């Protein structure tokens, strides 16, 4: 075959290309299979949690593991409406999940709004204006993230007790600035830096004030970044356990705290706890779905600078 009428070199080259294409196809096929398997593996904890939330206590503890079972909404009734059907000590647990959910919305929402206001001003200033020791200021914000929470939480507890911020919404919103503002400053700073300086210079020549430059140029152009940062900040606040645990009490109990109260002294109410966990992630899921486009765009937006 190698000595056929086809000009030398042509046929072997076609064969090589074909083999390469096959290899590439095979590689892509295997890659996709691997990614699909990985995707399902990452889904297992969520699926497990969801299925457990639909099981009765007996099915939760069954051995061998029950894949097929009669689903029940009892756990959701208990968690959402305080309606308990089983006669057990755990059934008398009165965890106020709706109340805790509302508290989380107020605290995480309030903290995100306040931090977005303050953090964006700082990020814009650090990105656009030359000032002495600018990097020191920027590092100062980041330093809050370096310090382990327990370094400052005990003094904060004492201070909060003395200034009556303990167990208040305002106190919770303020303490969350410790994690929210550094996140916003450092994320948004790169977005603002990626906007061409000429735009601000032109606006400045036209007489725009710094606030106008921020409002009319920077914020609209950095909208994807704003959306992504706001969502990430909200999630960080929503999931936080330590601050509401140590600086709050019954009146400001958030949903992360309320969920663990299904761990009782005499048994663990896995069904109710997983139902509460599902309820807990719903707002984050909804939020993430609505702004998913912005998150993906936002996370890569600041990566390429002028």
């Amino acid at each position, binding site marked *: 075959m190698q000595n056929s009428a086809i000009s030398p070199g042509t046929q072997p080259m076609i064969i090589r290309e074909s083999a390469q294409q096959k290899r590439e196809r095979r590689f892509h096929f295997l890659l996709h299979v691997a990614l699909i398997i990985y995707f399902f593996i990452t889904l297992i904890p969520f699926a497990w949690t969801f299925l457990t939330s639909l099981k*009765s*206590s*007996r*099915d*939760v*503890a*069954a*051995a061998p593991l029950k894949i097929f079972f*009669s689903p*029940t909404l*009892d756990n959701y*009734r208990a968690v959402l409406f305080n*309606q308990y*059907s*089983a*006669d*057990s*000590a755990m059934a*008398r*647990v*009165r965890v106020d999940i709706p109340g805790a959910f509302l508290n989380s919305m107020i605290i995480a929402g309030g903290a995100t709004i306040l931090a977005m206001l303050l953090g964006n001003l700082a990020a814009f200033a650090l990105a656009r204006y030359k000032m002495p020791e600018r990097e020191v200021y920027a590092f100062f914000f980041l330093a809050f993230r370096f310090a382990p929470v327990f370094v400052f939480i*005990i003094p904060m*507890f*004492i201070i909060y*007790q003395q200034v009556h911020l*303990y167990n208040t919404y305002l106190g919770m919103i303020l303490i969350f600035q410790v994690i929210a503002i550094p996140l916003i400053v450092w994320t948004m700073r790169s977005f603002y830096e990626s906007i061409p300086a000429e735009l601000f210079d032109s606006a400045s020549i036209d007489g725009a004030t710094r606030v106008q430059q921020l409002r009319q140029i920077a914020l609209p152009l950095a909208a994807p970044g704003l959306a992504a940062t706001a969502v990430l900040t909200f999630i960080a606040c929503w999931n936080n356990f330590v601050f509401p*645990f*140590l600086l709050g*009490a*019954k009146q400001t109990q958030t949903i992360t*705290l309320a969920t*663990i*109260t299904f*761990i*009782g*002294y*005499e*048994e*663990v109410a896995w069904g109710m706890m997983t139902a509460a966990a599902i309820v807990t992630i719903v707002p984050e899921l909804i939020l993430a779905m609505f702004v998913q486009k912005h998150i993906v765009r936002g996370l890569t937006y600041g990566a390429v600078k002028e």
Partner: protein
Amino acid sequence: MTLQNRTTRRRFVQGATAGAAALGASWLPSQTERIRAMQDTFDWQQFKGAQVRLILNKHPYTESLLPLLPEFTKLTGIEVPEPLILPEAEYFQKVLLDLSTGAGEFDAFMTGPQIHWAYDSAGWTEPLEPFLADTNLTSPDYDEKDIFEGLMAANRWNLTLGSGIGEGSQWAIPVMVETYVQAYRKDVYDELGVEPATTIEGWRDINKKATKGDMKGIIVRGERGGGMSGTGFVSTFLGYGGQVMDEGLVCQINSPEGVHVAEQYCASVKESGPEGWANVTWYEGQESFANGSYGQYMDCDFFTALYDDPEKSQIAGKVGLALCPHADDHDPASGLWTWALAMSSRAQDKNASWYFIQWATMKEQMTNATVVGRNYNPTRSSVFDDADVQKTMGSWANGTYLPTVLENLDKYARVAWAPQPENTFLATRWDQALQEIWAGDDAQTALDNAKADVDAHMKELGLIQG
């Protein structure tokens, strides 16, 4: 109730309405009568207008107490804002934070002997014996003697490191007690023709016999730092005459008794227990025994409430209880834990706080806690005598529950640990040694190393000399 006929919405509403009506018909008049009767014999209103702030552990006792708080306010005129309730791990952190910083956020709280020793020596808790002795502050109906003396003693301490339990001040009043027992599958043991073992060798032998097919003979806690050495194991250790620490706070876990018990215990778990023993938590042990995977779980007595609950357990009606193994020439033993109510030394109104502790530990509330709230085990002997309690608990574990637990409470249960602040370190290091033995290390060497580490730690902290 089967899974098929579990509550529908309509049935739930009907049931809830009927329940509320029954409560309204039976509970309210008796509540008024009870308050009147209590006021006849004692001035409950002398601290009217005060406030008592509570932090409570997530516990059946707590759940039973919450609906009664308005009755306390009606009786005394003392307000009780909604208490903060947390699971155990978070609860202890929160209490420690409040007490150690002197914040004084809470007036009364739940605790237990091993925990409040640290608070007592730091002056964070208020001695309660002056209140108990004052007839102006304690009702003649209180009947302190009705509370098991061993449990009151467990919450007394003279602040001497290493000794003095049962002496000195009364730091807390017990509201719940757990002891440790062998909970075994009676049907399996009957089929094998064996009785629960009285010695560790017999225990190992029976566990081996009960291991067949899908069933393994034994499950016990195996997670380091999760009470692994502190329940069934330490009870057996005590039953062989072991002593965790001597009065000079020198660790004794590598004594000949300690080595013998550890050797047999770990060997039995290795040959007849779970493969991933080092990760077994208390609830995994409880759930695995309840789903029929094991022949025995040596742990808390009150877990029997779940084992005999057909809604949650596949072994309801098939369980028996027995005391933990012990040496032939030694009495059985059991460690114990009591939840107890204590008062912060920073309580804003100590008399009002005592009124709450007193009321919450009286016969009526304790009986209600057990009958309605499933607070097992009660700490007053009169509660055990109550007809409803007898009816409920009397049938548990095929009738073996009450005799076994009462025998423990009357004769054998005691605090296993020496009063000193480093029991958590000691227990965790002991857990590690048991895991090493289970993994194949020599028992004597593993326990010698653990003892050396504990002693070195205690020396470093200046708790022992030399």
